[in-house]
């Protein structure tokens, strides 16, 4: 390899986009951000199954992963990816927290399969796992939470990642940010809202449309679940319903906490 080639490769990192169990919504969000297409000149988007029929290359620098881990095959793929890629980015609730696919983990997987396909069905041949985030299998360098991701947040993070900046994931719950933009509080209106414990950074998009937070960005690192429950109990709210609502995006973490 000539020096010029090495330089070219260094300045144009190879990026691959992969998906596990998901609805492809985060990849759709990437296509919804034309500015990202402008980055095509600065990155070598060499594998993106959704957009091109080229094969996956043997070597790449950055792997962007959407979807929850639900199969043995996913575990093997992720281990391979971790060996190959310098940078691993998990995008979307499925990849970051297990997301909605994780919800099936509130019950028994075989029961779920029988309910959907019938008891004598032999169709789901792959070995299925309790849905889990990517970070439960391999080390993840960067996470873009949310269901779906905000493409601008992803684009900014991808550029930071290429420059080698450290991950700076928001730690605080959404509540404070939501109050700053003066959205009327759901709790004060007697309605449940998961913004109390959910990672901020979404700009309170749902709340600004008068929808309560459903927790898609995951439980905030600084959230105090016990204190939140106590506050709700004292306020006469249904704590069980609150815990049940948390499951929609955070079953994996809720189960982990219960196990530990």
């Amino acid at each position: 390899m000539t020096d010029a080639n090495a330089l070219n490769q260094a300045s144009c990192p190879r990026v691959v986009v992969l998906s596990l169990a998901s609805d492809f919504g985060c990849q759709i969000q990437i296509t919804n951000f034309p500015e990202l297409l402008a980055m095509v000149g600065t990155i070598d988007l060499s594998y993106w199954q959704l957009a091109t029929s080229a094969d996956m290359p043997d070597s790449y620098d950055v792997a962007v992963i959407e979807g929850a881990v639900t199969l043995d095959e996913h575990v093997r793929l992720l281990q391979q990816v971790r060996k190959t890629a310098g940078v691993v980015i998990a995008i979307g609730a499925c990849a970051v927290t297990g997301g909605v696919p994780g919800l099936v983990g509130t019950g028994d997987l075989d029961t779920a399969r029988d309910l959907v396909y019938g008891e004598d069905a032999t169709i789901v041949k792959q070995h299925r796992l309790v849905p889990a985030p990517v970070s439960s299998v391999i080390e993840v360098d960067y996470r873009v939470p949310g269901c779906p991701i905000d493409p601008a947040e992803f684009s900014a993070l991808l550029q930071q990642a290429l420059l080698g900046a450290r991950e700076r994931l928001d730690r605080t719950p959404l509540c404070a940010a939501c109050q700053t933009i003066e959205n009327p509080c759901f709790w004060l209106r007697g309605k449940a809202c998961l913004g109390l414990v959910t990672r901020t950074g979404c700009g309170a998009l749902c709340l600004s449309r008068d929808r309560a937070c459903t927790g898609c960005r995951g439980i905030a690192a600084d959230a105090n679940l016990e204190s939140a429950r106590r506050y709700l109990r004292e306020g006469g709210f249904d704590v069980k319903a609150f815990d049940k609502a948390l499951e929609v995006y955070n079953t994996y973490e809720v189960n982990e906490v219960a196990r530990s």
Partner: protein
Amino acid sequence: MTKLNIHHIARIEGHGNVAVEVKNGRLTKVQMQAIEPARFFEAMVKGRTIDEVPIIVSRICGICSPNHTVTSIQALEDAIGLSVSRRTEQLRYLLVYGSYLCNHASHLYLLSGPDFLGLPSVFPLAETAPEVVSRALSLKKLGNDVITAVGGRPVHPVSAVVGGFTDEPSRNHLRRLAARLRAAVREAAATVELFASFDIPEYEPEHEMLALKSEGTYAITRGEVAALRAGWTRPARDYHEFIHETPVASGNAKFSQTDGAPFMAAAIARVNINWAELTPSARVAAAGAGLRAVVRNPFLNNLCQAIEMVDACERCAALCEELAESDGDSKPRDWTVAKAAGGAGATEAPRGTLYHSYRVSKAGKVTAGDVITPTAQNLACLEADLHAFAARITDADPEEFKLRIEQLVRAYDPCLSCAVH
């Protein structure tokens, strides 16, 4: 014996393989395998609240989430006996039909178009035909902007709920959208011209086709189900009686039949069944493309999608104008659950009719759910077409054979995350 296994077909939504075997020049096996991992949505919704279910099932599919949201809401409203305002109905129509613009533009330009141009992806076009890429992106953006105006964001709308909308666009916002939609009719018509110029194989199977039908409109969010060949029309809520889904051993999506045979539900079915309802510009575009009802060639499904984009621009523009100038209210209506009951709903998604049904308990919990997606309906028909079509081209060289097979798959615009769910 020759085996062709196309693993993870690119430029479709979700994971799918095609397996073909040819023995002594004869086709012995063709399988369309949906290998997308099952997520078990029907199991997930059990025990969840009525409000949570549309949020959960929207995640079946990132690309037709407006449909899953609206269809589940309508099925749940049917179960609890709640009717909604005319304005809510109109906004739902706009939310869903507006999504066709980004869906069809993405599929036509980003996913299936490169096949006809002999390209691996759309990216090289940015240099050779920038005006085509810019048209694709502007139509897609317009669709996203319509969904965002009504639903709050392009993927997984937030403001559509049981009973109405928690928020709606301002009158001025609607007027601006109307003007942009009117201007985009031209761009959509250019898409029809582009796809009409591509060579497609001659192939005219005699499948049944099903789509919603509703007198006086291009049926998208309400209507009865019409069968093109058999000529019957039935209430959508009885879908379990005329669509039969069975698990198959070759993949994780169930295959469907009606009247004992595979059928197609897609743009081609809608254009055929609702031909008389197309807007004037859509009819002009169809005539210019040389299209006549009945359209049977599945490769023409892409052209039908382009015609729907013309119809969608013109019809959504008129709807935005009406919403901007008319009074009315879309605020969520209050509701209670009087008794345990079941309900069903159907809408036309970009890829065909989408059916949802639920049972709810008196306590307001969902106790059972069922979803039949367009691609789950189309897979049996696609496999039959792959079989019949592959048999005709067994002499083609392997590269050409593979391309033709993939082209047929993409003509159907399958969404395997939907099909498996």
